[in-house]
């Protein structure tokens, strides 16, 4: 299993703060497994993606395996 953690308003798009998906997943597989609105949102360059706590410089290169945690991080809120 792969856990997807959704931060900020991306959690609203998913309707939940976390999702569980089957391993393994590449970027295309991940998007196919997500609700449409969320799949579109994570392509937006302002939304960052981390795997196991490390930000991805190249989202499309994502390779997630069993036990991994993926996080979707929208722009942080100012003060």
């Amino acid at each position, binding site marked *: 299993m792969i856990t997807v*953690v959704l*931060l*900020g*308003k991306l959690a*609203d798009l998913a309707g939940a703060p976390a999702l569980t998906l089957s391993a393994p997943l590449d970027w295309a597989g991940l998007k196919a497994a997500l609700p449409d609105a969320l799949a579109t949102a994570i392509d937006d360059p302002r939304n960052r993606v*981390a795997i*196991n*706590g490390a*930000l991805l410089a190249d989202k499309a290169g994502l390779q997630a395996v069993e036990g991994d*945690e993926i*996080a979707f*991080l*929208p*722009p*942080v*809120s*100012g*003060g």
Partner: protein
Amino acid sequence: MRDIRLLTQMFIPGTLIGPFTQANPGLGGVCTFVGEVRFDDGVEALELTHYEPLTLPGMHDLADRAFDRFELMGLLMVHRVGVLRPGEPIVCVSAAARHRRDAIDAVDFCMDHLKSAAWFWKREKRANPNGREWHWIEPRADDTRDLARWQS
């Protein structure tokens, strides 16, 4: 003396700053900023979410950069997460240094980065004629401008 924390419960800044000042003997000055949840019209609560694997390491990273950039003896950086009510402290940054310029600038630097570059997401609960709703707070242009001051 370096003290970096995420807190899930209400805190009283004075209880942190006294011991922090004591822990840096020989200092010339201490600058402290405390941010509180403002009483804005109709806002009943503020919720801060964070992403544990990035947020605390990000704060430590920011502290490293402050120590590199300014001549500091100590740095305290405490940030709340969870649900806060208006009037509650949300952030406290305190810098101790031999000279005032380093202490003041380090606090300014840390605050600008905590506001715009740290992994926190905020939403506020507002009362309106139809009841209560949570609204996400969007990044502000002001905060991005403040951050740009430190790029040189």
